[in-house]
């Protein structure tokens, strides 16, 4: 029960941060959460949470229903493909993150415009901004990823000591 409550509060906090940061830096916290939670939690829970948040974003941002969900599903496919080509361990993994993030912003722009207006948007003008934001997202991902790994390591070490 408490987990459900925590998830609801987290969604509200995430939505606030998404709206705040997107207005401020055109930065999406959804992609960061999406990549951080990938393969870290139960896939069913993951998909439910992501779908819920994606539909919420579609609703509040006045996107056609399913825009974010479609972008995320394509992104997860590409992310898996990139993981095959680029090793998922080591520093090269961050290149996958960078490319995926870049793709997310491009796809959101493209699919959003296509579904909403039926026209291709002018992406060239936004490429530099998207590249910068993708770089920041990758750096943030690296920090949080290391933090989460250190927590996991501390947890496993204490378990070993107890044994």
């Amino acid at each position: 029960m408490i987990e459900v409550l925590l998830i609801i509060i987290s969604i509200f906090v995430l939505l606030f941060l998404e709206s705040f940061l997107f207005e401020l830096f055109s930065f999406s916290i959804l992609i960061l959460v999406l990549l951080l939670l990938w393969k870290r939690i139960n896939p069913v829970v993951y998909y439910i949470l992501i779908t819920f948040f994606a539909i919420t974003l579609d609703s509040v941002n006045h996107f056609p229903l399913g825009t974010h969900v479609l972008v995320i599903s394509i992104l997860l496919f590409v992310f898996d493909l990139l993981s095959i080509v680029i090793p998922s361990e080591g520093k090269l993994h961050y290149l996958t993150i960078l490319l995926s993030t870049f793709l997310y912003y491009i796809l959101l722009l493209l699919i959003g415009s296509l579904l909403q207006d039926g026209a291709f948007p002018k992406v060239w003008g936004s490429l530099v901004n998207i590249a910068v934001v993708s770089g920041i997202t990758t750096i943030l991902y690296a920090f949080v990823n290391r933090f989460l790994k250190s927590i996991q390591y501390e947890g496993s070490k204490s378990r070993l000591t107890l044994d």
Partner: protein
Amino acid sequence: MNMMKRKFDFKSYSKFLYLIFSIILVLLGQTTLGDRVKYPFAYIFSPIHVYGSNAGKKVNNWKEALIDASSYITEFNEMKEEIAKLKVENSEKLLDYNEYLSLKEQSSFLINEREYIQAKIITDNSQGSILINVGKENGIEIGDIVILGRVYIGMISDVSLYSSRVRLPLNPSSSFEVVVLPGSVDLNKENRIDSLVKSTGVVIGKSDNILIENLGINSDVKEGDFVLIRDSRVEDIFVLGTLVGVSNNPASTNKSGFVSPIFDYGNILNVYVIKK
């Protein structure tokens, strides 16, 4: 049979299934049902989205203001330059207006048989002298009297080709014989002033003020009385200023005080030189 028994692996097909789901959702979104699905989400989450966006907008405004700070400084400096330019234009207009006023005033006091040369003040210094823009070229000579209306301004003490130095009454080397008249006298109307003289005296420049001495001990001089120059070097009677700070020492054989000039010499723009 083995194939039938194999458990369905969600993880393997999850992305594929999710892609199908997303396509269905997009198609659903294109129908009227899409809005019905979105409505409860918008109802619940819109306030927090609006709040977050507004907060982001406020911070963004500050961010842009900070980024544009250099442009604001440039704009501020440009505005300062513009203000200075406007002030200069305004002061030029004021100069023209003052020139007009002084000419008007001078024309009402002119003594027709004399020749007057109009001059502009170039600089003034704290040593009790001013520079004017007329010199030998205009026929100015040392000892010429500089006036404005009926007010004495000074005496030419040095002449070059295009400019001259005027020694003001404030100058320590300046001294004149003067007469004191009641402050109630209308100098524009009164032509005969001999009967109105309260006392005679001598004025001496003291750089920052004009000292008046040798006023009759029994004379009824008081603050606000007019001090007029009546000196053989000036050859006419001109107003110097008003009497202030009159001493009242019974042990003294005469009274003294100070003369407050009619004009603040630093603010005069145009003067007239009387050619001998």
